């Protein structure tokens, strides 16, 4: 009898959820009371952080329709924030690996944490989607053999685009000019970056001289590591679809029609070097995604399967964090948020059906609401 009453009370509570927003817009201050609630992001900040990628395409569409960018505060993000707060930065950087089924919100968690990192003054190194470099191959993909490393392949345009992304994300830190290059870099006979010039100059060079973009990225990552070690900055590394680096082959072709393996790409080498835990004063957030896996259907969504043996060994001591489907409460707040934004309409019966047919999956729920 008691349990029945409890259940009825629970149901009444879950149906009467009308508060779905929170005014707490600073991720550092968010706590577990606000789980399932939405907070709104400033538009300018959005442009700065996610202007060159970082939010899933479908979510971008939503922000346009809803005329605002809102994130749901969810357990995995809060968990990582708690961990970061408690981290001793003198120890080697900790690697967090996000995993979960398709559409559960791994990329959204990364986006949420980017906001946190930006607020806390981290230097952000963010790769929006690894497979954009290695698997999405347009017809005129620019490719060149590396000048500095024997047997490696450059993808200069992608590297330059990423440099731009890095520059916009960290414009505040870079503008102050405190981050300096440690030694001389000679690109060609006439072009060189002397020791003591700012990181911004290095990046500008990479953007202007696209030919050297990959080498600039390599140098940049190396310099950032050094800077972090010397406590001049703290670094936040976020790589979405990290398992893309460990796939057997990429979709890139050499002019002789030979398929390129991921480890033969210079960018891969640089980022794999970065994700080793041989440096301090940093946080690394990686996500493994079934979509980045080459097989059409996956047996499992767990990192061990998706990263293969070598990937797993590469990042071995890591903290796995699971991003799961919506809980009952999260689902209800999400539904009322959608109703507020006119995305979900019709009788309350529809929510019951959508709850079961979407199996609480955030992405699926959003898609199922679309034609209603």
């Amino acid at each position, binding site marked *: 009898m008691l349990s029945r009453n409890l259940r009825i009370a629970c*149901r009444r509570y879950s149906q009467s959820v009308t508060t779905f927003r929170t005014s707490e817009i600073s991720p550092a201050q968010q706590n577990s009371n606000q789980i399932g609630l939405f907070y709104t992001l400033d538009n300018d900040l959005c442009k700065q952080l996610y202007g060159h990628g970082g939010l899933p395409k479908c979510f971008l569409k939503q922000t346009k329709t809803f005329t605002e960018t809102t994130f749901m505060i969810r357990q995995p993000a809060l968990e990582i924030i708690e961990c970061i707060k408690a981290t001793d930065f003198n120890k080697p950087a900790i690697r967090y690996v996000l995993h979960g089924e398709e559409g559960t919100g791994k990329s959204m968690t990364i986006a949420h944490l980017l906001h946190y990192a930006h607020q806390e003054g981290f230097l952000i190194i963010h790769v929006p989607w690894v497979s954009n470099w290695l698997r999405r191959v347009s017809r005129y993909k620019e490719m060149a053999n590396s000048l500095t490393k024997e047997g490696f392949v450059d993808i200069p345009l992608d590297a330059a685009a990423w440099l731009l992304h890095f520059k916009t994300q960290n414009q505040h830190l870079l503008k102050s000019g405190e981050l300096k290059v440690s030694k001389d870099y000679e690109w060609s006979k006439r072009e060189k970056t002397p020791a003591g010039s700012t990181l911004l100059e290095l990046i500008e060079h990479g953007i202007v001289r696209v030919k050297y973009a990959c080498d600039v990225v390599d140098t940049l990552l190396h310099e950032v590591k050094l800077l972090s070690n010397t406590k001049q900055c703290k670094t936040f590394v976020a790589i979405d679809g990290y398992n893309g680096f460990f796939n057997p082959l990429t979709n890139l072709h050499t002019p002789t029609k030979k398929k390129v393996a991921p480890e033969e790409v210079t960018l891969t080498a640089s980022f794999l070097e970065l994700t080793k835990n041989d440096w301090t004063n940093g946080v690394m957030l990686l996500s493994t995604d079934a979509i980045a896996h080459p097989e059409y259907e996956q047996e499992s969504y767990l990192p061990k399967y998706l990263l293969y043996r070598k990937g797993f060994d590469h990042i071995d001591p890591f903290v796995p964090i699971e991003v799961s489907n919506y809980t009952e409460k999260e689902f209800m707040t999400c539904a009322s948020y959608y109703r507020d934004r006119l995305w979900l309409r019709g009788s309350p*019966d529809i929510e*019951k*059906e959508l709850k*079961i*047919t979407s*199996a609480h999956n955030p992405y699926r729920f959003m898609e199922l609401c679309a034609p209603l």
Partner: protein
Amino acid sequence: MSRILQLSLRHINSVTKYPNQATNELLKNCARANSNKTRTNSDDLFQEFTDWETLNKKKTVSKAMKAYLERAREHDDFMKKQEFEFTVGKRHLANMMGEDPETFTQKDVDRAIEYLFPSGIYDPAARPLMKPPEEVFPARKAAEFDEAGRPHHFLFYTGRPNFFKLLYDASEHIQNIYKFEDKVIRKKAIPDPNAKLELTSSVWYSKEELEQHLVENITELEYENFKLVMERLVSLPYSYRSKEFIEKVRKPIASQKFALEIPKPSYDEEGREYITTYECLRKKARGDVTIRSPGSGKITINGKDITYFADTQSREQVTFPLLFTGMEDRVDVECNIEGGGPSGQAGAIRWGIAWGLRSFVDKSMIDSMQVAGLLTRDPRKRERKKPGQPGARKKPTWKRR
């Protein structure tokens, strides 16, 4: 003993022979007689159409009548003989089975025949049987003409007087209803909605049944015409005035029995009520569905949750009976399903859940489910390919040569 068996066998043989073939020859002639069946409508027609004056003048009996009387006598003799053989055979059969011949009913006969002559022939009509002769040999018409050779029935020369009389009557009814309708319209009244004919619980006679009813063989086209005319009659607003006429050619549908046999749920180790529906079939899929109450709306399909089905339509199908009854968060569902594709599997689970839920909902909800068609099993299967054509229905492309 052997004589008895022989006799009963002989009887069976005579009956299992195609009875229609034997009688068709008789049927070809227009004069028919049967002692145990006479048609009443021809009796009063007899009064109307027989020309007594001419009859009195010539007392001669026509050749046709003579032949008819001869055949009628033969038939009577034949039937008598069959009747006798049947009763004797029945008594023998009773003795063989070691039962009392006096209380040996037709049911016992059928059982004994099935026991003594087990048959695996697919069509039940082709299996050995032993029935009273009046059931085996079709009823035949009485004489349709008088002694002078003049037919009683005014539609005699159509070849199928009873059938065309039926159409004739139907159209007369239609005319009458039109007249009545016009009268009512003149009075500016509207038809009474409560008096409307209730036709959902009965159907038209099938072709065979109609043939039996009319004692006439009709063609497919004629049967279609019959249905057309009757449908028109029924569609009229005042068709209830011809209710008696209409109901003569309709038969009631056997009422549904499922509501009576709702099983009681049993209890599992945790003390929860559960019920398992086996043989949930749809297309090529088959499986079983277990429903546990009280539950929290957990759905398990082959060990996975509802993500077992990738497409939305299948998921909707599975959830539909739960949402329809409002039980989506009060029961747990477990299914084991195999064979077929996602649509078939989802359909099978849908039926299984609806069937199992009967034990957990009240009577009015069962009625609602019945009206929604959730309790009807869908027996449709893939139609087989036919030899000589590329598909089940598709014919080869036409070629001049």
